[in-house]
């Protein structure tokens, strides 16, 4: 555990750090937490914004209450978020089905292969590894191919599943809040 002196020194040093200074540095740092873009606000594209507005109007009905409209917007946004994650899942499976994998294969997959390459290179007879076409390792039949593609992207699908679950919880909470507001405005 750090002593009090160390903690004080750490704090002093931290105060000296003011983060990135250049424009490029700031831009890069702003994307530090960026992973896949699924948490991006969906209103960032015009088509989504239009779809969102239509859905908000359908949920809120004739209400002009600003809070009701805001809560309807949260429901609609979560609903479109859910749709986006589902699209991402299918796109991932289709990609794996077409190419056999998501990431391109590495030239060397084991340390032994690297050693073998370096030894051969040292002897003046480099062995250039042949690229592996992962799509040839996929079953040719449609449903089997899709199932194999699902198997190959299972870890990624599980991650996306977490986002889907969060969006569903957010939508349900928003529905309850929306109803709470409708009730309150009716009782006023």
């Amino acid at each position: 555990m750090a002593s009090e002196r160390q903690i004080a020194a750490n704090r002093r040093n931290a105060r000296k750090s003011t983060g990135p200074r250049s424009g490029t540095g700031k831009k890069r740092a702003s994307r530090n937490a960026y992973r896949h873009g699924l948490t991006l606000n969906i209103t960032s594209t015009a088509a989504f914004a239009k779809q969102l507005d239509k859905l908000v109007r359908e949920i809120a009905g004739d209400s002009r209450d600003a809070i009701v409209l805001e809560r309807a917007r949260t429901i609609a946004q979560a609903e479109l978020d859910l749709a986006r994650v589902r699209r991402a899942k299918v796109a991932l499976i289709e990609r794996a089905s077409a190419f056999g994998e998501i990431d391109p294969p590495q030239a060397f997959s084991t340390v032994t292969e690297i050693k073998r390459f370096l030894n051969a290179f040292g002897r003046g007879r480099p062995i250039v590894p042949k690229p592996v076409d992962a799509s040839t390792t996929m079953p040719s039949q449609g449903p089997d191919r899709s199932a194999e593609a699902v198997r190959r992207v299972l870890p990624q699908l599980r991650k996306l599943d977490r986002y889907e679950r969060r969006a569903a919880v957010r939508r349900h909470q928003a529905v309850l809040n929306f109803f709470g507001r409708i009730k309150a405005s009716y009782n006023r």
Partner: protein
Amino acid sequence: MPRRNELALLPKLPLLITESADEFDALRNAFDQEIKPRGIIEQMYVHDISSIAWEILRLRRCKVVIINSAFRSALEHLLVQLLKGPGQYDYEVKDKAQALAQAWFTDEEAKKQVSEILSRFGLDESAIEAEAIRRSSADLELLDRMLSSLESRRDKALGSVAQYRASLAHQLRESADHIIDGKGILRLEDAASERSTAA
């Protein structure tokens, strides 16, 4: 039945090329018949439930394919173990095991031969399936986790419909009480008197 414009507003569930849109529609209709959603919010929940159910079916299909596709290598591995005599190495029986495992899927004679080898050790074809499951256990475990997560989300979505309906019923009851008690009328009268005072 849901209104056409409500359904059009909800984003369509994307399907894989190998999946049938008609089958999904049939599943969705079955949930519609059962839950009878009213209004866009209930439609959302039903859409959610059918999407989750569809994904559960997709993963279950995948589970079967994973086990089936591990059958050949499982049989080969099992045969190497069973054909190997004392003091023999794997590579000495590997070719025979490979050929037999390959032929097992199409050749009745090879099937009979494999059954004989298995029965010599008190085993039957379920040993092949067990080995196939063992070999794909990592994938199956991940699939099972995803399936239980989806099943729990489906149940929650069904619960959400019930919760939503209960809160809607509660609100309707309260509104009815308001009308019966005359509170709504009073409010209108108050507003009218406020307007006349202001004038």
